[in-house]
């Protein structure tokens, strides 16, 4: 896929939006003592990107976002967590979409759930405490709920963006 100016500008805008949403999330930490628990606001952007500018571009978007946010707000460990979350989440969403069995809603739920799952897996290895696995159910519930909400939002955004891009 060749990028035209419109799409470049659009990608840049999405990155900026993801960055801002990540910052909002830093301000609203889900402080329940569970490493990896996140509302995953920035996931909105990834979902929208996946449905509008294709898998490759949205993967680039995810990576750039993780690096930018990590450098700005976090430390290396945090970057590692969110990279794991973002990559696993992206992979699941990619396959979820390609299977054509799920709508944007289901894809977003997959993204939300596996974002949290990815983070906890890294945390288990980083902290060498398998006990963290006990948090998994809670993380899945949080991921499902936030994924569903984000799915609805993303669906609405996508409709409008597609109109704008076409």
């Amino acid at each position, binding site marked *: 896929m060749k990028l035209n100016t419109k799409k470049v500008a659009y990608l840049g805008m999405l990155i900026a939006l993801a960055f801002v949403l990540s910052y909002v999330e830093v301000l609203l*930490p889900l402080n*329940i003592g569970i490493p990896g628990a996140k509302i995953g606001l920035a996931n909105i952007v990834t979902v929208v990107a996946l449905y509008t500018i294709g898998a490759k571009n949205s993967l680039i978007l995810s990576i750039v976002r993780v690096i930018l946010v990590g450098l700005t707000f976090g430390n290396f460990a945090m970057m590692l967590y969110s990279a794991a979350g973002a990559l696993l989440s992206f992979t699941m969403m990619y396959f979820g979409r390609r299977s054509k069995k799920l709508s944007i809603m289901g894809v977003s739920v997959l993204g939300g759930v596996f974002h949290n799952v990815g983070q906890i897996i890294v945390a288990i290895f980083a902290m060498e405490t398998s006990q963290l696995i006990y948090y998994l*159910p809670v993380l899945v519930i949080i991921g499902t709920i936030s994924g569903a909400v984000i799915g609805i939002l993303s669906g609405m955004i996508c409709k409008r963006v597609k109109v704008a891009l076409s």
Partner: protein
Amino acid sequence: MIFNRTSFNMKAKKMGAGVLCALLLCGCGVDSAKSSKNIEMKSTSFFAMDTVMDIQIAGDEELLNEAQQMVADLESKLSVTSENSEIGKINKDKIGRLSPESATIFKGAMEICESTEGALDISIYPVLKEWGFTTGEYHVPDEETIEKLLSQVGYDMVRWQDGADDTVDVVLLDDMEIDLGSVVKGYTGTALSDFFKENGVDSALINLGGNVQCIGTKQDGTPWKIAVKSPFPNSDSGIIGVLEAEDIAVVTSGGYERYFEEDNQIYWHILDPKTGSPAKNGLVSVTIVGKDGLMCDGLSTALFVKGRDDAIDYWKSHKGFDVILVTEDGEVTITEGIKDSFSLSPEYANSTLTVITR
């Protein structure tokens, strides 16, 4: 994008907590706030003065460290087993000076020796040593040895006079040794209690190897429940009764604390200074309840030696304390001051309980 991140984070965390509670209706993973007690109880436990000390206070942890230091200081001054303590030096040189705090304890102990007519005797130590109660190498000494040792036992043979600046000078006979161990823990309990109170602690429980001293009540305003150990080895609950206490010292002495068996005979560590042998006058446990821990500690030993009837007589002619006496046949006698606050444990509910009035 330069924000004051810390303050943002603070606010955000509070908001986050709210959002989170709403999100996690099930409350999973969220530690609900601890029940709204006034002050958290802090506690410590350590070995000192040859015993285990448990202290819990409604107050700062730093106070516990200072308390432990106080105990260590007192021990280093008064330990009879250390040659470098003030007592150790006096026992070695037969002459020496006690610093003000040690002098206070010494005089307090001497007062009890006098008022109990030698039922408590700080100079019984050489006999105690001979029996092996200080080392654990127990044996029954022959009568001749006891006789010889007893000739040098007698608190009234300890020469002492007030020195400068509240010190006391002590002179002993050649073979005499003194030990303040029978009152030190009681004194320490009250000293710690005073120290905590001066620092604003209004609820505390101090247990120095079974010598209990409490400050105020529990945080919920109910009195401390202090169990008195059953002196009988076959007891299931291990408790003969419970005393509800506020701001007071509770000290128990009993033969069960330290004893050995030889030829089916039980020999315990509370010696009658008159005979030099274990005091067997019908009592198996004596508990003294009073404001002054030193007095309670000393009297618990002295009244054990005196036996039930003499103990009751002593209580009738002296003020400032109450008594719980347990005889070897399981009868419990208490004095009127604690008749409403003491109750027998369920295991001993059928024992005879006599209340003595003045």
